[in-house]
């Protein structure tokens, strides 16, 4: 499929991407290459200009109607007047699902047991993002879309959150599309790393990450892990050079 806004040039062009059930695909690329636009189309928030986006065997909009999609954006989407647990509960209220996780229990599992009744402004950026991801996962969606969920965090928090997120996704195993700027984050979390070029955004490389889990990068990263990071980074740099960056 392709995407253009109004009569402008293609933002995304001839994208052919299939994600298998339970697979985690990371999208990386320079700013403006259309990563977020692609994710928003899968979420049913943007339409395609040509072609189709198929989610769970139907259109993206219909997949949302099935309430099988969870999305966490870069900025935590929390209602300021609701507590952490109420924000997570909101997902169940909207989806009408009673079979999901217990919001309080999920937040406890996410290390927020002492902050269930805290309002978003009382939580740190990392804690807000945990609530945000809990709200995206509480209804046990088959599809999880993560748009730079750790992008707004500082380096230290980001490192610990990446490890935490790897654990959460390892346990829940939804089919996941992750947009990120961080090669390390992509290699730690993903089964495949897709590198997008830009002007227009196209799939330049689709690299599989065949590393055993859990993937420890902050303690003592394995030689294989470092080699994979180098491989992804060299492909990314090649794409950036080709687009004049």
């Amino acid at each position, binding site marked *: 499929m392709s995407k253009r806004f109004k009569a402008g040039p293609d933002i995304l062009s001839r994208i052919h991407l299939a994600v298998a059930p339970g697979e985690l695909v990371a999208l990386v690329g320079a700013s403006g290459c259309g990563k977020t636009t692609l994710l*928003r189309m899968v*979420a*049913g*928030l943007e339409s395609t200009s040509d072609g189709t986006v198929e989610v769970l065997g139907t259109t993206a909009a219909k997949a*949302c*109607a*099935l*309430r099988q*999609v*969870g*999305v966490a*954006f870069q*900025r935590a*989407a*929390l*209602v*300021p*007047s*609701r507590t952490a647990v109420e924000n997570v509960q*909101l*997902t169940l*209220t*909207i*989806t009408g699902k009673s079979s999901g996780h217990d919001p309080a229990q999920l937040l406890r599992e996410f290390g927020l047991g002492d902050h269930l009744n805290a*309002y978003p*402004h*009382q939580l740190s950026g990392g804690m807000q993002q945990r609530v945000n991801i809990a*709200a995206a996962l509480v*209804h046990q969606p088959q599809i999880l*879309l993560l748009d730079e969920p750790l992008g707004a965090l500082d380096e230290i928090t980001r490192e610990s959150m990446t490890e935490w997120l790897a654990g959460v996704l390892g346990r829940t195993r939804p089919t996941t599309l992750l947009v990120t700027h961080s090669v390390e984050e992509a290699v730690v979390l993903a089964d495949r790393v897709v590198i997008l070029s830009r002007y227009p955004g196209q799939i330049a490389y689709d690299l599989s990450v065949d590393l055993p889990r859990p993937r420890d990068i902050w303690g003592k990263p394995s030689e294989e892990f470092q080699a994979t990071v180098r491989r992804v980074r060299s492909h990314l740099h090649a794409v950036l050079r080709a687009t004049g960056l």
Partner: protein
Amino acid sequence: MTDRRAYLLMFVSVAAVWLLAVRLAGLPPLTLPPPSLVGQVLWDERATFAESALSTLSTALMGYAAANVIALALAIGALYLSWLEAFTTPWVVVLKNIPFVSLASLLIITMGSTILPRLIIVVLVCFHPLLANLNQGLKSADPVLVDRLRTLNGSRWEIFRHVLWPSALPYYLAAHEIAFTTSIVGAIVAEWFLSRQGLGHVLVKAMTEYRGDRIYAATLISSAMSFAAYWLCRWLGRRLTRWQRV
């Protein structure tokens, strides 16, 4: 300084300046009456003042309620009908900028001394801050939060109830602090022009009779009513947005 102390200081200062002015100005008591004379007239004519205050309050409340209904309808309607805001904005701007004293005169000529022109005046003076703040509050809703609910297949009503309205509420409550007190001022002005009852009428009558004590008494009552309205809105607003101060 706490709110309470600041207000206490203000009331004490006003009383002190009043007493000082009475002593230094040397004006006759009916032009600049001492507080004791105003207190006396308030007590002696308490039935008239109570009836007038009630009449003013009922006009203000009816106009204020109508202004709320109109402002809510226009602000919420504009969320879903893109042409509505473009269509109503020129009307709102023009009505806001016509001196409402001129409008009051026009309304007397066309409608006579009935309740309707008084209500129209109250609506016109207190409607604008309600509409402006509601529009601002509804537009301040977090678009990321709206997207989150859209991906969950949230309906328009659910998005309004869980995202748009909570965003607008602090703005709407802030507007009440202005609009409710303004509705009382509007009701008094409307009565001044158009009525044979209410505090506005008491003021006109007192002026023609050179009764400074009654003017001061009516002013004190109307100020107390506005002040009570302000505090009621403020108290309610703080209760409804308690989460902001946790």
